[in-house]
């Protein structure tokens, strides 16, 4: 990473203000942000959801979505005023000199046309190449991006190609006219970690090769650390700070930035291992379960002891949520059994006693769908209190207030609110309170933090840890995020394709030697070190990362 700030300025945004239309009025999205990008430079834009990163990224192309407008400021791209340019002038730039890579490649490729047709469209329309040249160049780019079967893959339709490959094909498409600037809008957010790393390596390689300037938008600090020369932090439409990647990581100036960094540091002390003869709270024994006729879990066994957290990790489709459904009784397994405190539980939840149901509670990923939008907080938490404990009237109200205190929300302000009046983190806390109201021994946390911004997620993790210590709860923590595992788990179960690949106490699991899949999974999680990807590629080689490596296992 050389110093790029000495090179000529490519894109200049001054005091840019953007508004969005909601309920017949214009509300500000971006309140006056400056941005300067030099030739060949990669700028990382980071911020939580609602920070206005994508809007700002699109504005850098002179483009706004429907119901959004640029209300002030100037955007100059290589001497061209993008705010006042005519539609025709802007069209001449788009695709040719400024290109865009969207978050979801699966949705951003037109399902009706082959990849190569879509690839060749921009060069032919802008007259930079003939159709045949564009196709040939496309195949060359596919090869550079290490797509399998580069000669043939372009002649497929989008739905015939996997997500990670599509994302790389879209990077190739953005490169088709060799633009001066590419906007990457969360290009790896929708991908699994092992796939993400491949795409990251491809993007970094090709951007460097063609000396393209880029704006890289993401909410993931570790990702942006690998990609960007400089980083700009946004918070609700305002710039927080900007500096080059290394100094930003080493000495953030603003409190908000520091707090983002600090999230990564939360880690619970290791607990002593459980007694050898202790009865586990939940014991999953030899479960094989199927949806319809297809087995999705194969001989899965693990134990969860009192007061401990077992993290179940794996990528999408690994069967971790299915395991939770088996434990709750929603999906009776074909073979195997589940024990609660040494007693076998009926396999179907409808056959379990009220007390057995009470002992196993669940917290969901999407707090929006987990709380009935038509009920007040008091009703939501009060129902299990009444249902299981038989409390009514005053005593029920007192208990609900006590629970709200436990999740750090003042009862008097929240009792009569509806879920829609709460923030994402507050909703998730209500979900926790509802589970606690049953006074359970064991709680399943299904990706509880993955829909939340990092700071909020951190708060939830701390709350769960505190509750565990106070109440002696056991958690089964389903997640795909290894940073979360590192901060909260006592034991780790790694799953792949419905099987347990490896399991053990956390300290052991984060120390080699590993099962090759665990190894791949662990090595694929980006770290805050800006040299991490470079070192990893040096260590493993470009052919031993991502899907290419997973296929070998």
């Amino acid at each position: 990473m050389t110093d790029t700030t000495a090179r000529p300025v490519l894109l200049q945004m001054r005091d840019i203000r953007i508004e969005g239309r909601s309920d017949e009025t214009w509300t500000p999205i971006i309140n006056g942000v400056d941005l300067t990008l030099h030739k060949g430079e990669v700028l990382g834009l980071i911020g939580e959801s609602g920070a206005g990163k994508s809007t700002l990224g699109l504005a850098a192309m002179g483009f706004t979505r429907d119901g959004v407008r640029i209300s002030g400021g100037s955007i100059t791209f290589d001497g061209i005023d993008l705010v006042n340019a005519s539609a025709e002038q802007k069209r001449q730039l788009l695709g040719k000199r400024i290109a865009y890579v969207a978050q979801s490649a699966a949705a951003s490729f037109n399902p009706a046309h082959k990849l190569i047709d879509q690839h060749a469209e921009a060069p032919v329309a802008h007259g930079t190449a003939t159709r045949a040249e564009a196709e040939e160049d496309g195949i060359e780019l596919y090869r550079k991006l290490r797509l399998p079967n580069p000669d043939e893959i372009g002649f497929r339709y989008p739905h015939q190609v996997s997500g990670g490959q599509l994302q790389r094909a879209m990077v190739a498409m953005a490169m088709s006219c060799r633009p001066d600037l590419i906007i990457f809008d969360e290009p790896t957010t929708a991908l699994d970690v092992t796939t993400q790393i491949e795409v990251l390596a491809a993007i970094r390689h090709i951007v460097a090769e063609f000396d393209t300037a880029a704006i890289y938008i993401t909410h993931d600090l570790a990702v942006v650390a690998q990609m960007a020369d400089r980083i700009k932090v946004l918070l609700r439409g305002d710039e927080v700070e900007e500096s080059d990647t290394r100094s930003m990581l080493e000495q953030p100036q603003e409190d908000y930035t520091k707090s983002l960094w600090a999230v990564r540091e939360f880690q619970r002390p290791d607990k002593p291992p459980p007694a050898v003869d202790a009865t586990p709270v939940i014991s999953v024994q030899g479960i094989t379960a199927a949806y319809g006729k297809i087995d999705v879990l194969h001989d899965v066994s693990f134990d969860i002891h009192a007061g401990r957290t077992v993290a179940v990790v794996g990528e999408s489709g690994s069967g971790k949520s299915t395991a939770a459904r088996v434990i709750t009784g929603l999906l009776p397994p074909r073979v195997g059994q589940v024990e609660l405190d040494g007693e076998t539980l009926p396999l179907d939840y409808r056959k379990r006693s009220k007390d057995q149901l009470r002992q196993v509670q669940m917290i969901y990923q999407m707090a929006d769908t987990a709380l009935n939008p038509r009920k007040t907080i008091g009703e939501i938490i009060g129902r299990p209190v009444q249902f299981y404990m038989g409390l009514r009237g005053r005593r029920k109200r007192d208990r609900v207030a006590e629970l709200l205190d436990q999740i750090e929300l003042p009862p008097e302000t929240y009792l009569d609110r509806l879920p829609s009046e709460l923030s994402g983190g507050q909703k998730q806390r209500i979900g926790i309170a509802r589970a606690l109201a049953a006074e359970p021994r064991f709680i399943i946390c299904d990706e509880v933090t993955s829909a939340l911004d990092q700071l909020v997620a951190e708060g939830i993790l701390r709350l769960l840890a505190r509750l565990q210590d106070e109440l002696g709860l056991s958690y089964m923590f389903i997640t795909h995020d290894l940073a979360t595992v590192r901060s909260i788990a006592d034991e780790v179960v790694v799953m792949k394709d419905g099987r347990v690949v490896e399991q053990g106490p956390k300290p052991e699991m984060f120390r080699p030697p590993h099962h090759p899949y665990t190894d791949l999974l662990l090595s694929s999680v980006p770290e805050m070190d800006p040299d991490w990807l470079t070192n990893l590629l040096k260590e493993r080689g470009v052919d031993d990362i991502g899907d290419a490596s997973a296929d070998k296992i």
Partner: protein
Amino acid sequence: MSVWTMILIALVAIAVAAWVGRFVGRRATGNAPRFRDMPYAVAFGYAFVLALLVWAVWYYLQPAVTEAGAPVAGVTFFRWAVHALIVFAIAAFLFRLLGRHVGTSATRKLFRHMPLTAAFGVLVILVYAILAIFAPLIAPYGQAVVFDQVNALPGGNPATGGNPAHPLGTDQIGRDLLSRLIYGAQNTVGIAFVTTLLAFVLGGSLGFLAAVLRGWFDQLMSRAVDVLMAIPSLIFALLLMTIASAWATQSWMLTVYMVFIIAVIDSTRVFRLSRAVGMNIVVMDYIEAAKLRGEGLGYLIFREILPNAYAPLLAEFGLRFCFVFLTIASLSFLGVGIQPPLADWGTMVRDLAQFINFAAFSPLTAALPIMAAGAIALLTVAVNFVVDWMLHRSSGLKE
């Protein structure tokens, strides 16, 4: 010169005007983005609307009576239409203004964001409701009272064959048309409302039950509904009415049969919707949480699912009501719906239809069948406006 040549010339003129207008606009504003980025199609649209407005004003100002004293029906009708539109718009505007300042804070807030069309819809529905409920008090005579003078012309002027006691005249057996028009609100709207309610109770309860129970009950009900929906509803209603007419020994019984027949046919559509709405809610995590808690079926349906289904069901109720209302009106118009002596608008349109040929001599007489048909159209338009706004609002909230 034929009509077509004139239309062609007008279109060419508009096309030229559009081009010139855009060009002048660009020059005059120094290439402001508004004119610079305007596609030709948009410019043409503006020019077209402008031409239409000019024509409308010109036509409105034409004399409504020839020098010989004969009415010019076209101009008369056009003026009526313009006046009606203006009166409706003003009424809706005033009504919305009223709504913004009177009532609880919730209704005031509702009116603040209400488009004029929706305010118009609410106003019309209120007026119809009042007419329907207080018809006996408002109507000058009973709906079945027969007077001596048959076929009295509207207008109330004895010189032109009218009768001041019957401002809209009398029908072919001497019943007062104004009274029958007002009673029509009670009968047509009332019967349609009851039918829709019945369809909702039937279709809604079965639909939610199917969504919650799933399994064979859902399969059975859904397949049965598929079959019933494979027959166009008006055709099916006509077939069943044929059979019902053989069973009915008295005319009021046929009306009752009709209510049940249409309710059953329409409940299939309600079933589909409530099942779909129910399914969307049933897959929510809060339902799973309630199931895992060990809650019973009644609690699930009434406490967890129903409160979340009110909004789409209410909108559907509006649409279903329109559909039922139109079906009943059509059946009556075809002569197999609401039976005399009950006054209803569909039958009135059929009975008065031939008056339309008098348009050239007496516009008011020709307006009679249009008035009865318009009474039907006005209510359905009003309900649709309100439903459209409700749907727009609920989809806006989701974003």
